[in-house]
């Protein structure tokens, strides 16, 4: 007998989740999360498939695979772009950079997001559409040829097309776009990202093009791993409502999870129309608000309207340091999952994840983590003891998360969702005495399942 199944996948920054559900009953055959560095998807998936087939004692046929992801956010902290070039109307070469947003800006410090594209990769083209849509400066075929030659010389591959007022009259835009495509360039058109061609859509397009390389790698890795099990056309990558008709919707997919949650959790858990979510996942702590808002990227606002997500100051991979008062304080710097928290067996620095997860690891590793933390705590001003310090800081972490999220949520109903949600139940009930609290664990409502549900809605 053959079982028809659908597969849901969710790729976080370092973990991925897999769910197999039988069609049409939706019975879950398998659901779990894996640490990508330890169990790479490419090698893990075939093994999982075999194991599930063996256990169900029948042939399994995958009908469709739906892939959700936040994986790309991991590279926000690094230099992006590579061979991305910008083609802009002559005279507007620095229009986007004049709208630069800095993360921190004081008289003596400046923190800005990493490069998206360099000045050397900005190419101007002698054309101009006026604000009423009239042609002010005609685009010539010579300008296009010269542009193409320059782009080839610089070995550009992906091109962001940011022409002033092109939304009022796309004729020049179309001519350049056609020439670029003909010459095998991958074109990212600002017109695909908003109603107007201006700094917001230019920035969105530039971020999307800068992420394209990593997205392609992720896509190839997934499709290669799945190719013997399912035809490539049945592997669907999720998009959110911020998707647009002509763009590749790489960025749009980053926001599909929250959208899917608000859509499906409402029915499943009989939630009211208005509720907020405190998301406590393995990789991210954040507050989700069920209203559309402009996505504030690390480089500034974009033209994407997505569900509002505010990352909390405390994150799973935050480590600890001694602060101005010589107390142990949660660091603002995230250690990331490479090598990752000590609990996962690779890291050497204890972080928030370890404090919350320590009880789940082997006693030897647990001791190692506690000792590492105590090495810092003992040198602080606080009156800590070796046996209590670790548990005390679990309370500190909980309190921090509750204080910050209480200042961000206003609805009467608050949902605690994610892997750490059950741990928070007692403390949260004590804190939010007057609110209606709902706790949903990751296991009962996995992100891979949300990917699958949303995927079916979008693609079937």
């Amino acid at each position: 007998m053959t079982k028809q199944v659908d597969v849901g996948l969710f790729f976080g920054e370092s973990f991925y989740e897999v769910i197999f559900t039988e069609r049409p009953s939706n019975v879950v055959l398998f659901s779990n999360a894996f640490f990508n560095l330890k169990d790479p998807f490419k090698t893990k998936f075939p093994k999982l498939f075999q194991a599930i087939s063996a256990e169900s004692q029948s042939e399994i046929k995958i009908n469709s695979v739906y892939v959700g992801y936040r994986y790309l956010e991991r590279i926000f902290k690094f230099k992006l772009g590579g061979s991305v070039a910008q083609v802009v109307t002559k005279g507007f070469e620095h229009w986007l950079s004049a709208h630069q947003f800095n993360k921190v800006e004081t008289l003596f410090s400046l923190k800005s997001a990493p490069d998206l594209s360099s000045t050397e990769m900005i190419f101007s083209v002698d054309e101009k559409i006026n604000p009423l849509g009239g042609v002010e400066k005609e685009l010539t075929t010579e300008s296009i040829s010269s542009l193409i030659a320059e782009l080839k010389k610089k070995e550009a591959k992906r091109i962001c097309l940011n022409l002033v007022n092109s939304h009022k009259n796309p004729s020049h835009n179309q001519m350049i776009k056609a020439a670029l495509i003909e010459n095998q360039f991958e074109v990212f058109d600002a017109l695909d990202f908003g109603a107007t061609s201006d700094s917001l859509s230019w920035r969105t397009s530039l971020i999307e093009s800068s992420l394209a390389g990593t997205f392609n790698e992720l896509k190839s890795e997934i499709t290669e791993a799945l190719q013997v099990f399912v035809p490539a056309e049945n592997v669907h990558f999720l998009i959110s409502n911020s998707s647009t008709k002509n763009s590749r919707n790489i960025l749009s997919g980053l926001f599909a999870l929250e959208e899917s949650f608000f859509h499906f959790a409402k029915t499943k858990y009989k939630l009211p129309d208005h509720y907020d979510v405190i998301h406590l996942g393995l990789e991210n702590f954040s507050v989700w608000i069920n209203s559309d808002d402009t996505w504030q990227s690390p480089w500034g606002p974009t033209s994407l309207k997505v569900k509002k997500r505010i990352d909390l100051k405390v994150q799973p991979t935050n480590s600890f340091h001694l602060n101005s008062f010589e107390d142990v304080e949660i660091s603002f710097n995230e250690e990331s999952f490479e090598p990752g928290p000590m609990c996962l067996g690779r890291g050497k620095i204890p972080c928030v994840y370890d404090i919350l997860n320590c009880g789940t690891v082997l006693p030897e590793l647990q001791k190692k983590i506690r000792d590492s933390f105590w090495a810092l705590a003992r040198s602080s001003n606080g009156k800590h003891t070796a046996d209590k310090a670790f548990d005390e800081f679990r309370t500190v972490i909980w309190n921090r998360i509750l204080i910050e999220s209480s200042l961000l949520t206003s609805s009467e109903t608050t949902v605690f969702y994610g892997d750490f949600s059950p741990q928070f139940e007692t403390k949260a009930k004590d804190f939010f005495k007057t609110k209606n609290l709902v706790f949903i664990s990751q296991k009962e409502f996995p992100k891979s399942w949300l990917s699958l549900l949303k995927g079916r809605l979008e693609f079937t």
Partner: protein
Amino acid sequence: MDTRITDFHYFLKSVSEKFSSVAIFNSDFKCLHVHSRSINNSVGLMNGLKTLKPFFPWDGTHVVIHNDPLLGCSRIDRVQFLFSIDSFHFAIEEAFSINWELNHKIIKIPPIPIVENKKVNNSLIETLSSQPDCPKDFHGFVLKTLETIETFQQHFKTILKFEKYFSNKELHKDYLDSASAFALKTIKSKTYSVALTEFEFEPGSFLKLKVSTSETGVRVDFQGTTNHPLIQMADSMTDSICFHFFADYFQFLDLMNEATFSLFQIAKPTQSLANSKIFSQKLYSDFVGPDLLVQALIDGLAERSPLKPYLFTRSYFQIVNGDQNKTLNFELANSKPIGSLGVSYMFEPLLISKPTPSGTHLPGLELFYQFGLEVLGCQSTGKSGRTKENNDSTTTLQLRCVTPLRLNVLHPHLPSKTRPNKSKGTYSKPTLQINGALKDKHSFILELKPNDILEIKTGSIEFPST
């Protein structure tokens, strides 16, 4: 584990982030924390509530507003809101939009309770709003701010019910003592002894500034000089700028409170703004004065440092769109490629004053057009081969007027000479040209007609020193 001052500090920082400018006081009216994105209002936020302490019941039933510079309100387009929640008191400062009609007065609001016994006094707000010198959207601005305060009150109370020890005065004392001890330790650890700066605006008009650090803290002495009439400002603004500047330099911006401010001795300029009768000067000094004081402080700092500062003074622009009388404020600063610095440089590695204010100050193409200006171009050119490192570039914005409009301009007031002789600063002087003619008065209103061409440059000139 007992409540640690670190956890209390985190609590103060978290709640203060709900406002752009806020001072938090305990039941004894001791200021525990000041958080502000502006450089010119930290001390004003501390002063206002303390001065008004005897005049209103600070029991959570009232919200008092005012915009009096002598009570600490830092700008003509800002209002202080003072209120209490449980055993804590708050002073916040919020901005509203005004037309920079340089010759018109803007309403001066004395301290009045707009919420009394937990009820909004709508008739009072309406009376204020109906005054001829009150900005049009003032009513909406006040109600919106009251809504924000109400939501904040609920959140704050939830936290206090859970963290009862946060109201403990012993904890507050420990916190203030620890903050002060840390700030003093940092001040003492930096080699910064005595620096003297002198700006000459015109013959006989000087601004002298002597800054020194010692075992007891920071001393800023204006040496009896008078600020130029165009940059006079209330004492609390001078205090705020000096306090904020050094808290930033010594890296205790998140520990600004009355204990750390007590480490400062500031001998202010004589004849500082008491209550300027000419409002055009008040508006001008509100915007341009802080930039100039910061420059003077940076110049002094540069003298004691091996680094070369690049000082970018800014012009402030406001478009007033014809009949609708809508306003759009904007600024231009030196631009750089998106994220091109790609690094965080803190403190000493590069000493640069405001290389690139966030893009919030520059509207988009469409918004400019809605207000009657077409953007013709925006370019940035480097002066030296090291532009990427030192941001030594000039940005030019070209605009064409498409409908009749009014442009209000506030240009920086640059001194004609500086001392000491070895001034290392490279000053960037912004310029504005209309149809090729330079407009370099300090403040003026321009009536623009269609096809007028504006060219705004962040500029870069080597400043003459004597």
